[in-house]
């Protein structure tokens, strides 16, 4: 039996607020090339996308005005999932150059990796709410609050996935390709372009296991239909989110100490 014990004094006296902020800021800056034009585009992109999709879908699905909003919400929420999980999976390898520099809480790198996607999601949400208000269908304050709570669940799910996937990606170097296939196929599993109702009832439970499904359905339900899902549905979503986050954290804790060796 061998014994291992290591103790260190943290160099930053435990404060890493500066690190968190720097990671988020530089991620954003890298993505938009640090130019003013890039920054403005980053802010305008969700609005532009929203308007383009709205115009196209209004034309294509002129007879079903409800469908075009459902479609737009589904597309944006799914894109968040796709983008955030992808950058989470790649985060440790992409920031590997920092991991070999000093000992620091490396989970910060994983958790902040979703920040770009989260900014886009937040902007989209604002655009969506403004649009709903302008078209005379302003959701109630409690509907908006519920929508925000769903997005927090979404973030927890994405973070849990990223924690596990980022460390596993160090060992399985084609994990990103596997995940890409899964998210592409998953686009059709989530009820984005078709309504859940066209599938047999017995399959619904399984579809809810795919995290974007409940988030998209519940978000549409409170914002567009003005219907609040049941307490049981909410409880199941929370269980799913907390469960994924907990499993991700456990996988991360088991694997993280060896990550630097595999860079």
């Amino acid at each position, binding site marked *: 039996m061998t014994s291992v014990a290591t*103790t260190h004094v943290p160099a930053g006296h435990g404060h890493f607020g*500066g690190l968190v902020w*720097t990671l988020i800021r530089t991620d954003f800056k890298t993505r938009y090339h640090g130019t003013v034009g890039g920054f403005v585009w980053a802010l305008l992109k969700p609005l532009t996308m929203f308007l383009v999709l709205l115009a196209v879908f209004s034309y294509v699905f002129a007879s079903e005005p409800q469908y075009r909003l459902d479609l737009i919400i589904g597309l944006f929420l799914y894109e968040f999932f796709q983008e955030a999980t992808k950058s989470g999976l790649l985060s440790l390898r992409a920031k590997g150059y920092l991991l*070999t520099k000093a*000992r620091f809480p490396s989970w910060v790198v994983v958790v902040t990796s979703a920040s770009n996607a989260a900014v886009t999601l937040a902007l989209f949400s604002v655009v969506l709410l403004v649009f709903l208000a302008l078209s005379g269908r302003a959701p109630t304050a409690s509907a908006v609050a519920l929508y925000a709570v769903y997005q927090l669940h979404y973030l927890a799910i994405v973070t849990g996935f990223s924690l596990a996937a980022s460390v596993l990606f160090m060992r*399985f*170097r084609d994990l990103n390709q596997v995940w890409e296939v899964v998210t592409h196929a998953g686009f059709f599993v989530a009820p984005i372009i078709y309504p859940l109702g066209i599938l047999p009832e017995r399959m619904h439970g399984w579809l809810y296991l795919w995290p974007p499904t409940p988030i998209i359905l519940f978000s549409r339900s409170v914002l567009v239909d003005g219907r609040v899902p049941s307490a049981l549905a909410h409880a199941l979503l929370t269980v799913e989110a907390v469960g994924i986050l907990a499993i991700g954290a456990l996988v991360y804790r088991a694997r993280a100490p060896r990550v630097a060796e595999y860079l």
Partner: protein
Amino acid sequence: MGPVIEARGICKSFSIPSVRRETVREHALDFFRPRPHERLRVLEDVGFELRRGESLGIMGRNGSGKSTLLKIVAGIYAPDAGTLAVHAPLTPILELGVGWNPDLDAIDNIELLGTVMGMSLRELRTATQDILAFAELERFAHLELRHYSSGMAARLAYAVAFRAVRDVLILDEIFAVGDAGFKERCQGRYRDLHRAGHSMLLVSHEPRTIATFCKRALLLDHGRIVMDGPSAAVADRYLMLLTEAPAEHAPAAAI
């Protein structure tokens, strides 16, 4: 006062890359085949103490495990066995030449590396100019790192790390990079820090560096400490080791 670093019985091995399975595909295909356990033992039963205010040298041939030992001490690698206690905040300066975000300029990269090394944003606000001045790169403050020469990038990294030092400093081959003027400045900074009471751990292949900057030194060979004594004697023994078995290159044995 007790030592700042106490290491006892440190062991470390790596699985050899050629037998590592690196993809989902490989794992799936090899699922039913027994996994060959070929591991490279890099450190075996390494123990030492760094006393407060001491500058301790480490020498050894290529692949003898020096950098691995420093990474374990810095908490970047986890040891397989042994105990390690570091009683003061520690700043590593290891392989700093490589690894920047090429899309960001020097200022942003300084902020990234500085916060990773434990500096606060407030500290960095005042330190950034000093760091650029020490590296003599003020003119290139807003240049993206992709356009830096490798020497410039290395200088920037050392400048950040020297500024981030809290108490213990560990250095890997640092005096080997940069031009003569920069080397001189690094050595001057090293002396200042040592005089100010910082404890240091210094890896070098250069007998003169070890003899000048350290009183005591360790000699690592095949992952074991084969000598712990006055730096001049260790440097001599190191040179003998080089002539003894010049052809042998392997680190510790594969098992």
